[in-house]
């Protein structure tokens, strides 16, 4: 039996962050993870993160994972992979399966950072091969390089459903539709818009009637539901798909805590069964802490901060840092955490229907129901202006904690201000040089560079493009509007790929001038 100052269970964003902070305080730390690769879900998250610069915004999830791992490594944290924690016992003892044996470890403190598991819904045929969790789709395509299917229907329009739909498109799959029983899209509008402009339809207030097929999925029927979530006869729609992806939320994976005897509560706001814990994440068992989704479902960005808090709290509990130092660091992290928990998608706003943005602008119903802003609505947002020459058009319409665009512009054209959830606004005094840094920096891919008049009745639109194959200069194609409908012919003027853009290519297309504010995607012929 080996004893450590700190045992961390789970090498995801919160677990690694906890280990890093604890090791910085001088603790001897071991991290166990059942997977062959560390990073938890980070390694499947190939999109750029939201948030502020301090919280790894605009960095892709898997790179954050790599960064955390390097940092943990350099601090001497022992990350033991392919190591499944089998049980947690009295005296903070755990048993771990490593290779073909069982090892026993004790920790003077333990941080449980086991994350979440996917929720499921049932419908006739839900056990057929081809019905998979959205996490499974992500794992297959982003870790194993396998397409989950050729044609996919996504159930669920929370951020997971939206992000995975986009990733499916990136992997070369077709997405037949996004379906949600709720009347409104649950995730960020910008994520929905990315999918929508690629031509994927949204069906809100719809759900799956049945999955079809004998030995595997060959199709799916959906239908509209009423306010009691009962099917409305005659509204059935059929899709030929080989895969149905389910993204209907996550539940904390708290079994280890329960088995060890932690006091638990069922908290729907936190996604289910979670341990009761104090502000540092310490549970009813002294020296046993939690961090990340296991203590309540949130984003990876907040999981990392929670991890840091529990890491320093564990260090303090064993005398590695003083109580006042803990409090000082806690305040700093707490402030950051609070920042991330602001805006329309803040935990306290869950389930609420908001009508206006913080700026008092009406929230787009089209965005919430169809996944895109209409051409009329777009003009209301402070990021959208009409200027001579090239200038950014920021189609950012929801208050979410995110501000990389502000720092991205070398010319200070973009203002968000003190409040990280404010909508970005244009500083009309500053002069855009068309560098495109903002386009590549926007995690929501909501910024476009527009020159409404490049002569001869044409305009240019520069859009973020993360698909293969890359169009070539001179290629002709079709410009799609926000809803994914073809709006005009377009010619590729330029394609710019810089290391600083991190695989977000800047595609500039030439469209008729009247389409400057409509053309938002390019389809190759």
């Amino acid at each position: 039996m080996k004893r450590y100052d700190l045992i961390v269970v789970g090498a995801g964003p919160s677990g690694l962050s906890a280990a890093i902070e604890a090791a910085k305080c001088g603790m001897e730390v071991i991290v166990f993870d059942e997977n062959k690769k560390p990073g938890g879900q980070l390694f499947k998250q190939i999109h750029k993160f939201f948030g502020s610069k301090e919280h790894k915004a605009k960095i892709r999830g898997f790179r954050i994972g790599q960064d955390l791992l390097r940092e943990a490594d350099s601090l001497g944290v022992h990350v033991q992979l392919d190591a499944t924690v089998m049980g947690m016992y009295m005296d903070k003892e755990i048993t771990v399966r490593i290779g073909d044996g069982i090892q026993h470890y004790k920790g003077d403190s333990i941080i449980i950072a086991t994350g979440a598991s996917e929720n499921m819904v049932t419908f006739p045929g839900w056990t057929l091969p081809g019905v998979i969790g959205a996490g499974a789709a992500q794992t297959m395509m982003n870790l194993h390089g396998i397409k989950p299917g050729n044609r996919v229907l996504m159930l669920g329009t929370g951020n997971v459903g939206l992000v995975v739909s986009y990733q499916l498109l990136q992997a070369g799959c077709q997405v037949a539709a996004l379906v949600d029983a709720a009347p409104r899209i649950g995730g960020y509008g910008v994520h929905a818009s990315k999918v929508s402009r690629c031509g994927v339809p949204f069906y809100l207030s719809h759900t799956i009637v049945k999955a079809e097929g004998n030995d595997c999925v060959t199709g799916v029927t959906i239908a509209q539901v009423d306010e009691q979530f009962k099917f409305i006869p005659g509204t059935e729609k059929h899709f030929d798909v080989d895969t149905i992806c389910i993204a209907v939320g996550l539940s904390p994976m708290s079994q280890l805590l329960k088995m060890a005897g932690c006091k638990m509560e069922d908290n729907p706001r936190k996604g289910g069964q979670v341990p009761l814990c104090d502000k540092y994440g310490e549970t009813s068992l002294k020296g046993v802490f939690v961090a990340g989704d296991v203590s309540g479902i949130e984003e990876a960005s907040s999981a990392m901060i929670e991890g840091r808090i529990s890491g320093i709290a564990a260090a303090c509990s064993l005398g590695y840092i003083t109580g006042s130092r803990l409090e000082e660091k806690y305040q700093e992290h707490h402030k950051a955490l609070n920042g991330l928990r602001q805006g329309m998608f803040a935990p306290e706003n869950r389930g609420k229907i908001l009508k206006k943005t913080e700026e008092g602008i009406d929230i787009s119903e089209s965005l919430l129901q169809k996944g895109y802003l209409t051409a009329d609505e777009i003009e209301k947002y402070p990021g959208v202006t009409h200027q001579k020459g090239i200038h950014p058009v920021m189609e950012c319409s929801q208050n979410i904690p995110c501000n990389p665009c502000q720092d991205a512009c070398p010319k200070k054209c973009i203002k968000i201000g003190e409040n990280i959830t404010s909508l970005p606004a244009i500083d009309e005094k500053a002069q855009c040089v068309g560098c495109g840094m903002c386009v590549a920096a926007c995690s929501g891919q909501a910024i476009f560079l527009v020159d409404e008049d490049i002569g001869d009745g044409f305009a240019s639109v520069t859009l973020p493009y993360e698909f293969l194959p890359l169009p070539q200069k001179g290629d002709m194609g079709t410009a799609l509007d926000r809803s994914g409908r073809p709006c005009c012919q377009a010619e590729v003027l330029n394609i710019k790929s810089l290391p600083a853009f991190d695989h977000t290519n800047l595609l500039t297309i030439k469209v008729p001038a009247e389409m400057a504010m409509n053309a938002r995607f390019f389809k190759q012929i």
Partner: protein
Amino acid sequence: MSDCADVIIAGGGIIGCACAYYLAKRGCSVIVLESSDHIGNGGSSRNGGGVRQSGRDPRELPLAMYGIKNLWPSLSDELEVDCEYHQDGNLRLGKTEEHINILRGLTTRAKACGLEVEMIDAEAVQSINPYLSKEVAGASWCPTDGHANPLTTTLGYYKTARKLGVRFITGEPVTELRKIRGKVRRVVTSNGNIYEGETIIVAAGLFSRPILNSIGIDIPMQKVMLEALVTEARAHMFDQMLGTAEADFYGHQTKHGSFVFGGTLGLEGFTRDNGTPVTNSLAASSTCRGIIKYFPMLADAKIVRTWAGWMDLCADKVPVISPVDEAPGLIAACGFSGHGFGIAPAVGYNLAQLVTEGRTDVNLHDLRYNRFCAKA
């Protein structure tokens, strides 16, 4: 709803549920008070499912034989659940000379009580169960023993008793018994509720001791933790109940295909109590080593679950199933010492007889409560 009934039973385990069922069948009104949130939450749901006669103390053997003869064969039909009762014999295995000697002793004593049990050699063992290690040198063999599913049996008694009108209340721990004019009638719970009955049966496992203490009766019982585990489902292999001379494991293959095995670590009487029975970090590994010694081919079978339970180990390892003379109206049924499941139907049936007829088919004299008291 009235808090009065003919019989109040403290304890919603298989003993309490079986008593309730047979009493209700005889027309009694019954209230069952269970301290935990679940019916059958103690040993009733945590035991290895043995329905054995062999290996039992002669004092409780008649109950075991009675149940196997009269109650178990028709229990699934009666309770309308699948109790998964199998009467395919019990093999108690030995590998060494020393083991065989232990088994011979057990066999001789059981035979003396009229039980059909014999010693068999290695070849006979293999013919009964060809999956066993060739190292098995011999076994005791009781062909009328068997096993059943403790979960469905316990909950089957509950379900059927409830259907017959028995009132079950969970989360209602009995803390005190009270005499009214010389007769035990009242039952007080920690929630402050009072129930009243003509007869009070205390079948609350370990908790029976403090309950009985409240009326000045003490039955010497010890809290001992036992552990068990279950494997993934495998193709059907055998139907016997198994045990070993060393008692390093016992168990059977269930109808589901999984193997339920219990084992001992040697620390059972000394495990720490943190309020709920939690498994010891060493126990499952130790049990697996025991199993593999006898079933090498199960070495790659996967364990899916392990669990622990407290047993109410009576000072002389047999239960108290007895009216309490000095407290008229009170019946104690506790101290089953880890082997109560197999005899539970017989206990329930005979106690129902005792309550309604004042007599029992099986002579319970050797299981009286006052065997631990000074002679009158």
